[in-house]
């Protein structure tokens, strides 16, 4: 059965099977973060404009990262690299900031607040795992 999958693969596409799982998690996260923050922005923008905007930006970047990881190839690879670095910087900077300037209400936080703690640290883990994978793929 696996041979069908192998036959379809070309040089430019991601060929590490496990990476498919990473892409799937990215897709779910992109969907969840974008829908949630989009809804928050539409209904409660004034409550926490900076955090909700940050969440929407991160959601849209997750979408771009999902597509870039799935596509592969030189251009998409560099886009993937850029988006993953952006995410890692985002979660680290916002995470650090939120340690010093905590938000009282959990509902008002962004995806990246407290290093992504309210999302099971997935926002911190995803770019790290993704960058490691991109590094491995680049060396082959």
């Amino acid at each position: 059965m696996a041979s069908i999958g192998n036959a379809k693969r070309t040089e430019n596409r991601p060929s590490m099977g496990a990476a498919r799982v990473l892409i799937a998690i990215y897709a779910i996260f992109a969907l969840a973060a974008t829908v949630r923050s989009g809804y928050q922005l539409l209904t409660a923008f004034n409550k926490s404009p900076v955090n909700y905007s940050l969440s929407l930006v991160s959601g849209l970047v997750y979408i771009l990262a999902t597509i870039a990881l799935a596509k592969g190839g030189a251009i998409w690879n560099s886009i993937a690299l850029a988006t993953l670095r952006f995410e890692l910087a985002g979660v680290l900077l916002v995470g650090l900031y939120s340690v010093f300037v905590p938000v009282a209400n959990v509902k008002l936080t962004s995806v990246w607040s407290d290093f992504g703690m309210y999302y099971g640290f997935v926002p911190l883990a995803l770019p790290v795992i993704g960058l490691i994978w991109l590094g491995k793929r680049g060396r082959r």
Partner: protein
Amino acid sequence: MIDIYYQVALYLNLAAGLFCLLLGFMGRAPSGWSVLSLGLSELSLLVQLVLSIALVLQGAQAKQDTVEYFAYLITALLVPVGAVLWALLERSKWSTVVLGVAALAVAVMLVRMHQIWTGIYV
């Protein structure tokens, strides 16, 4: 959200997720069993949707935000569909792992929905 049904749906999705992860890491391509378990996951969400609409029509509201609750529910409904489509397109063991991850993601979203409905954050 009816509490007993929430519990049933939650454990069903956790079981489906672990089942597919196990099959995937055993090297199995998506089969009738793993796809069926994701079918059950989707069914559990559809029943949740019908129950929720019925509750809201009777005047019940989510403690936190009813619209946000339904946004989560509708988003969750897309997840098993996407995972099964993926499994049909690419029949490798990793697609089975993706099925498992999808069911676990649905379980997490059910927990969030329960938080939004009851207003209780653990």
